[in-house]
């Protein structure tokens, strides 16, 4: 789908990215705040296992997952089974299968670069991409790439700072992971103000609370996702009208 035109098109491409990054930055400020805190916490925990900030940067670059990396810190001890590590990682990230489901139609319009969007689909980036309308005059693909890349930069910076700080001063980071909670509360409130129909938000909260009580803290995410999908399918007629209003059909060819 991508057309590699002559030199002029190349120049357009770069200026398009500059514009996309400029326009994307304000939208990523919540994630900047959250990621500096929780990336920092990962860096501190990883440093406590004996790893330098270069290792933290490597993990945050190639893995790039919030709760996934928190969990992974426990894998870096002698004798930990690789199979167990793979299984636990799949379990903690299984919700991303559903995120993908909701973006497949949108991302499949893009070229090969969409694989970076897929790689970078963290909770925070997913939430941001789904709640942000592409501004006028910016190419949608470039805008989403800019958001994803900026978010990952914050994450890498946060983890590097955390790991460096931990190697210099004895820093008590207990409780710093609350930044992630605060971030989602903020996103929830923003969404609450913006949407006319708030039923899906409430379905998510209630389904999660019920599943948490029934299945416990370690096993409730998958049942919750399945419950949410079942409820929205059953209530389709009532939700469909409001769903259409979150439209972000801004893919005019620039």
């Amino acid at each position, binding site marked *: 789908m991508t057309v590699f035109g002559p030199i002029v098109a190349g120049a357009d491409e770069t200026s398009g990215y500059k514009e996309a990054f400029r326009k994307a930055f304000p939208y990523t400020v919540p994630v900047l705040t959250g990621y500096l*805190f929780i990336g920092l916490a990962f860096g501190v925990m990883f440093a406590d296992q004996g*790893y330098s900030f270069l290792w933290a940067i490597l993990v945050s670059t190639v*893995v*790039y*997952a919030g709760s996934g*990396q928190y969990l992974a810190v426990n*894998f870096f*001890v002698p004798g*930990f089974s*690789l199979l167990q*590590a793979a299984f636990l*990682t799949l379990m903690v*990230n299984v*919700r991303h*299968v*559903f*995120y*993908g489901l*909701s*973006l*497949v*139609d949108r*991302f*499949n319009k893009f070229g090969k670069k969409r694989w970076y969007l*897929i*790689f970078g689909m963290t909770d925070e980036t997913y939430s941001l991409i*789904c*709640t942000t309308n592409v501004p006028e005059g910016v190419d949608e693909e470039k805008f989403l790439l800019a958001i994803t890349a900026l978010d990952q930069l914050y994450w890498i910076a946060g983890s590097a700072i955390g790991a460096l700080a931990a190697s210099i001063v004895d820093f*008590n*980071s*207990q*409780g*710093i992971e*609350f*930044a*992630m*909670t*605060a971030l989602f*509360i*903020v996103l*929830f*409130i923003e*969404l609450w103000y913006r949407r006319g129909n708030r039923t*899906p*938000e409430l*379905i*998510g*909260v209630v389904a*999660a609370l019920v599943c948490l009580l029934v299945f416990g*803290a370690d096993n*409730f*995410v998958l049942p*919750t996702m399945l419950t949410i*999908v079942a409820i*929205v*399918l059953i209530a*389709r007629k009532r*939700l469909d009208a409001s*769903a259409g209003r*979150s439209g972000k059909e801004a893919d005019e060819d620039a």
Partner: protein
Amino acid sequence: MLDPVQSLVMIAVVAVATFATRAASFLLFPKGKEVPDSVKYVGMVLPPAVIGMLVVYCLRSTSVLTYPYGIPELIASLTVVALHVWKRNIFLSIGVGTVLYMALVQFVFV
């Protein structure tokens, strides 16, 4: 800490497993394959529900029945809500909420 080679292997395993969950839907519905209408619809209503779920997910390990009975989480969460409704300033909401929570669990509810 693992030795460097073991560390690299472990990082690779975690990276591949993470990417697999994110890529699964895109392998199921590759480019050019029509995405069913019901999947498109679920995709539209899912994001707000997921954000609701993630708030609960972040608070999942809160000890409600034993000390400190979820009080630090409750105080910090209500502070974030109040600050954000009042000022709509993201730095302020997340920054104050997080520092307050850290102070509560490190100094008050020890």
